[in-house]
């Protein structure tokens, strides 16, 4: 073999093997062990693909027409291990009560779709994978208890899928090149990405799904941020600065909006939904600021906030498995019975907000610097959002783990983590803090990726110009 693509092929085989194993009459815990092993192997393989110097170069895989179908570049080097880590986190920490055969299969298929998405720049293939991921998410909400959420998701994400399909058709069809239809197409793609990312005013489905839908599938669907990837691959290289500014302003507003609403929630799940909205909007703002620093900061934040948030929401799931639905309007106590879970929640929450010593800090510093360079006033929305999310996380921590005595002395009910859960959270925190103390590998790759993307932008942008007012 002259290139490293067989390695990537192995990556595809792993989730497929799990999906196939789920069809066999296998014990559920055993199937989980198979899934965890596959996810772990995939994580190691993606790390090797991304950073191992001994692997041969991987030239792009092209269609018969000569278009690039798959490639491994700086951006995908960052995102492949990220997608694998999300899969590992999902299968390792899903509580026993929420574990089911279909769920493990769905998770494997969704991961495969995410992985393939992060390897391609083909608009058509991205659209197909987008549909696959929406379909897997909808199928997770097929139970009678989630009919309302299914309808909401179908409405929002169905609309976004239609818009994406129409947008790609108009933007990339040979007949529309250079016409106004191309501009219309790009606008449709932008709206599709905004809906999928939960950017104001297209955001209402996110807290609803987190609150009353199934939290596990919602995390796996949202955390990879396929909407951000579509933005990077399809929108940023083509859109005019004015269009990107408009998206960035909406994203900055959403970051503050989500953080503010997270602060007043009485449901832990809904608060998680708004927290995710806020952090994900910060990523979007970074991607649309057209500054190398902001873009690189956005990439770093994408990884750190995605992983930290997925971990945080998993802690909520684990806690729910022990206590039932979590209400933030009262104190629950319990720290002394589950100190590691409590500390993990706090550490992951702070990592989510870019606390110093975590990877998010470097990302946020770059992002806020880049954002203020582009928007001298509105860029401070990042500062406000950061302050509010930190407060929201601490409020959740206090409500969920403090404020009430831990019962009579001698109470020994086991509420702590299982060994597998503890190991997973410890590994996640080690990665987030380790890369926070030494962030250069990630930041260097993020800058490499941002340079590559910005170099794709045509010098005078021709698509999607809007009449924007003077800079705020």
């Amino acid at each position, binding site marked *: 073999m002259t290139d490293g693509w067989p390695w990537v092929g192995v990556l595809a085989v792993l989730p497929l093997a799990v999906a196939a194993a789920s069809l066999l009459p296998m014990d559920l815990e055993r199937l989980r062990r198979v899934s965890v092993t596959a996810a772990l192997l995939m994580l190691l393989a993606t790390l090797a693909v991304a950073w191992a110097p001994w692997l041969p170069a991987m030239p792009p895989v092209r269609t018969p027409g000569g278009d690039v179908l798959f490639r491994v570049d700086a951006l995908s080097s960052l995102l492949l291990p990220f997608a694998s880590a999300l899969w590992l986190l999902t299968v390792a920490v899903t509580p026993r009560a929420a574990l089911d055969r279909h769920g493990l299969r769905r998770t494997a298929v969704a991961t495969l779709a995410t992985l393939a998405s992060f390897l391609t720049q083909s608009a058509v293939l991205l659209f197909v994978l987008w549909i696959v991921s929406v379909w897997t998410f909808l199928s997770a909400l097929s139970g009678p208890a989630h009919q309302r959420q299914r*309808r909401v998701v179908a409405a929002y994400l169905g609309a976004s899928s239609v818009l994406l399909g129409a947008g790609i058709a108009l933007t990339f069809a040979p007949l529309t090149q250079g016409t106004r239809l191309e501009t219309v197409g790009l606008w449709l793609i932008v709206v599709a990405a905004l809906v999928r990312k939960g950017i104001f005013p297209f955001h209402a489905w996110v807290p609803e799904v987190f609150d009353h839908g199934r939290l596990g599938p919602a995390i796996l669907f949202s955390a990879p941020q396929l909407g951000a990837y579509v933005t990077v691959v399809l929108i940023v290289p083509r859109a005019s600065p004015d269009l990107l500014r408009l998206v960035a302003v909406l994203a900055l507003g959403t970051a503050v909006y989500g953080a*503010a609403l997270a602060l*007043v929630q009485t449901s832990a799940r809904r608060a998680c939904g708004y927290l995710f909205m806020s952090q994900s909007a910060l990523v979007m703002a970074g991607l649309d600021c057209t500054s190398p620093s902001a873009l690189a900061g956005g990439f770093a934040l994408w990884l750190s906030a995605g992983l930290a948030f997925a971990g945080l929401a998993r802690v909520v799931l684990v806690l729910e498995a022990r206590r039932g639905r979590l209400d933030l309007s009262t104190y629950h106590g319990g720290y002394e019975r589950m100190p590691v879970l409590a500390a993990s929640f706090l550490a992951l929450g702070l990592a989510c907000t870019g606390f110093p010593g975590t990877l998010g800090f470097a990302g946020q510093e770059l992002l806020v*610097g880049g954002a203020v360079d582009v928007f001298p006033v509105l860029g401070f929305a990042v500062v406000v959002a950061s302050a509010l999310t930190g407060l929201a996380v601490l409020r959740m921590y206090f409500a969920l783990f403090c404020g009430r005595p831990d019962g009579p002395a001698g109470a020994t009910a086991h509420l702590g983590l299982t060994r597998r859960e*503890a190991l997973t959270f410890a590994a996640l925190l080690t990665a987030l803090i380790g890369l926070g103390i030494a962030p250069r590998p990630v930041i260097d790759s993020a800058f490499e990726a941002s340079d590559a993307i910005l170099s794709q932008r045509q010098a005078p942008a021709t698509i999607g110009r809007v009449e924007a007012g003077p800079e705020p």
Partner: protein
Amino acid sequence: MTSIFPVEMLLVVGIGAPAMLLIVLGGTSLANRPLPERWTGRLAAGSMTASFAALVVALVLLPTGPGAAHVSYGAWSTSHDGGIAIEFLLDATSLGFAVLATAIAGVVAAFSNRYLHREPGYNRYFVLFAMFVTGILFVALAGNVEVLFAGWEFVGLSSALLVAFFHGRAGPVGNALRVFAVYRISDAAMLAAAVWLHHVAGSGSLSMLFGESGTVPQTGLAGADATIIAVLLIVAVAGKSALLPFSGWLPRAMEGPTPSSAVYYGALSIHAGCILLLRATPLLEQVLAARLLAGGIGAATALFATVTTRVQSDVKSSLAYASLTQVGIIIVEIALGLRAIAFLHLVGHACFRLLQFLSAPNVLHDLHGLEDAIGVSPAHGGRPAPVAAPRVHRRLFLFALERGFLDAMLDRVFVTPFHRIASAFDRFDRLQCDVVASRTVTAEDTIHDD
């Protein structure tokens, strides 16, 4: 400047020792393998001693002369415009405060080791204590805004979590959240100042704010930019040092264990703002409006605190407001440009107040014993003479008793409107889903709007 290689190495030890303590204690706690008390106590004592010794030697070896020595440990994170470096700016003031901080931290670590013996949160306390010492050293010695901000955040988080140290009760937890809310305002102001500095100067080096080497330090800023950054710094300082209008959190912070109250609100944390302003004197001297603002806030805080401390019914709150009185005066001294006096005042006050805080439990214990023995309160000295007309006296008393109505004012001006607006938006979001799902909103779906 001659080579400062030994100072660089000493700084690694000085700051690295508490940082390593944080990593070791935090790591073992997260792994659910907390160290035994004996080991924790020894590690804390060892790291504080090492840090103190290294910083003292660094202070002695620091080349004399005006200006500050710039120490960089290279790029921590890269970017096209230079990235983020780990940098420190050393002068007699910053290193002097760092030496004071480690000395006080060593004393408090030794005191806490006994005071919290067999307390369930013993290990948690020392994790947060190590985070605090690391943070305050960053604040004291920072050479760029990123290091300063990291230290600022460490101090704030550890402070809030120590206020909630007795987290089995709702009171400390609620108060900790209030404290943290004010700290977040302070953090946001600090971050905004840092970002604006980056934006206008293209660099986060604090030498832009604290002045370059030379006989008369000058900042690299001018005009409106200097004013904006100075005002943001003053807001950050006001939040962290409990100056007006943010003083309401101070009595709430007394919920924590006595050693943490001593080190935070008697000795170090409450002076963090002072040391920051002291280092930023060149900027203040350049911006008259900022000096007037700082002086005005300092004087008002001193007056407010000296009135309030006289009616507090618990010793820790009384001491905290007494501290605040002195902090206000120190800020006035800084605003007047009296750097040396302000620094000496700060050092003396920190040591004196630390002693008062740490001895307060023993004094109370002794007084209670004496009271039991003689049947009356030995502290009873009769009613003080009125300081004003009875009506004014009553109003002043009420004002002091209610601590200036600051919490109520902040609630009315910020918290309640914020909650109301956010809740309205939340209801709107739910309504959108109801419309999409063809269902009307129900009572149980709406969140409480209190």
